[in-house]
């Protein structure tokens, strides 16, 4: 729908610290307007930071190990906790900025990441409600130091007399994000599908790859494009079975190298889903893919 012009606003939580295996909440008081006015959120921005860069395995990929769950009232914006890196395409060929730990050719330095998720549709947050963010860090065997996560919402404040529509478009992101290395991965169930009773309009898939390997004196779990898996992608559901990526195709051919994104507009009915099949030739088992399906659906305001 068309919204009236609004006043720009940026709400930042400040840093929240994540240790292994915990759930943490950013300062939600800072993530909602002080006045109880309707808010349109255009972007969700993140900074993730590994809090130590010295010692073996300490320079972890802060954006992969930090996961976020976003929801507004009863409406899920993400399907549970999703790696922050999976929500955000690469821009300008880089995602992290500060590289004091040095680099290994072919890997992205993992220490300090800034990225943003431009929502597929602006998210209307009625006055008095808020987009709730929860952070999680999985309990992995290779833990590393604590991570700090900063989250911000950029959008517009609408006039207080704005009449709420009956239904609103709600973004949705759902990911297939294994955490251990294997030679083959197949997504399952609705990890990349539509669990809602309404249509899901897709915007894009984000595809990245990470490694469990350590490099140099201290780097661990970096995004990698040294060994790229072949990927096949199938759409299953109300229209039968349809191959999207027919043959095993290198990951970064299926997705653009420059932003790690495959764009497409499709309408997924209830329980329609993509099945992704990754295969590492040569039996490589130290890499794993991360896929995220992004779209939106219409929901009735409760």
């Amino acid at each position, binding site marked *: 729908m068309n919204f*009236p012009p*609004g*006043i720009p*606003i940026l709400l930042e939580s400040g840093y929240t610290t994540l240790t292994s295996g915990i759930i943490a909440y950013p300062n939600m008081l800072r993530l909602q307007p002080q006045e109880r006015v309707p808010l349109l959120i255009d972007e969700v*921005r993140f900074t993730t930071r590994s809090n130590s860069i010295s010692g073996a395995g300490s320079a972890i990929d802060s954006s992969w190990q930090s996961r976020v769950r976003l929801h507004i009232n009863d409406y899920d914006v993400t399907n549970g906790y999703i790696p922050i890196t999976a929500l955000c395409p690469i*821009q300008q060929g*880089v995602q992290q900025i500060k590289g004091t730990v040095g680099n290994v050719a072919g890997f992205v330095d993992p220490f300090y990441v800034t990225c943003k998720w431009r929502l597929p549709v602006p998210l209307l947050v009625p006055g008095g409600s808020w987009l709730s963010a929860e952070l999680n860090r999985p309990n992995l065997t290779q833990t590393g130091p604590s991570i700090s996560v900063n989250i*911000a919402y950029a959008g517009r404040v609408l006039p207080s007399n704005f009449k709420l529509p009956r239904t609103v478009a709600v973004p949705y992101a759902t990911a297939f994000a294994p955490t251990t290395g294997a030679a083959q991965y197949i997504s399952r169930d609705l990890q990349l599908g539509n669990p809602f009773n309404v249509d899901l309009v897709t915007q894009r898939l984000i595809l990245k790859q990470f490694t469990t390997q350590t490099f140099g004196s201290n780097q661990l779990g970096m995004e990698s494009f040294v060994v790229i898996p072949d990927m096949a992608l199938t759409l299953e559901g109300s229209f039968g079975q349809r191959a999207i990526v027919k043959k095993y195709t290198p990951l970064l051919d299926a997705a653009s190298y420059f932003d790690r994104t495959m764009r497409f507009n499709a309408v997924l009915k209830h329980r329609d889903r993509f099945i992704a099949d990754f295969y590492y030739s040569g039996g490589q088992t130290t890499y794993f893919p991360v896929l995220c399906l992004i779209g939106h659906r219409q929901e009735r305001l409760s």
Partner: protein
Amino acid sequence: MNSMGQSPLHLTATCILQAGSSGIAPNTTALVNPYGFPMEIHEIKWQIRTGDVNYRPLGASTGCSFTLGSVKLTNGFVPINLFCKSTGMTAGTGSNVNQNLAAEEITDPTANFWNQFSWRLPVPLYVPPGAVLVPKFEHRNLLPSDLNITISYTGTTLPMAFRPKRILVPWVAYWAAKTILLSAADSDNSQETDLANTWPESINIQRMVGRTLLLRNSSGWVSEDGNFGDYQSDLLQVRIVRSDGHHIVPEFSRWSMVFPHQRRSWEMRDAIMAPNSFMMAFIQKAASANAGGGGAADQLTTQSMMSIVGWREVGT
């Protein structure tokens, strides 16, 4: 505006901007539609060269103002990098992968450092027959060297009888904070006349741009968002309020969250700024553990700059 599928047109003018000079215009006759027809401008491009290997010009080295007849498009001389979002950062090589995010910088072995910027206008700018959008430049004294400036307009010619139904004019206002020692904690705020909409019409905001410079005064070396142990824009926090009391950035927030690193720009859609209003920006910077090395003369300073880029409808 319906441009009626007319012929594309590209116009270019150049000038040399001597150190300390201000109000310098290029050969503006080169920027007039040579066919005598009206035109509309879609994009403005700049190229800045120093001709001296020691200096990186960046967009901040040069201020630019625009007038079309009696209509001003800028609130004074706006640093060129504050018109544009960043689109061509270089990622460096070797141990500097992803560190050296010098925006829009190109190194040419024969012409030393040069930078190129492109501003896709938020709305096409109608230019009547015979009229010209006059650019003027200011050397902002960040570097001691002269600057070679090239400016280009890209657009289309229009039929002689064409008159737009609505006159839409871009507007850019900016604020540059004081320079602050990288090793020091300090704060600053803008004035009412800086980030201002001085017009009786609302401004439709296209973007807000935020850049941070790193300066080494002893050598005239200038960089953007350099990596010196503490990433400078993470040390910097900003809060922005409107003149009517509404908050744009209610709490002091990290610069890089307001103006994301990769684009240096907060791209907006359907955001407005009220007539005859202004924004006040407040910054506070934490001290960096790294002063930049060397003696006192080599100490690094940092300067933060931000702008409002948008458009208004004239005569509504």
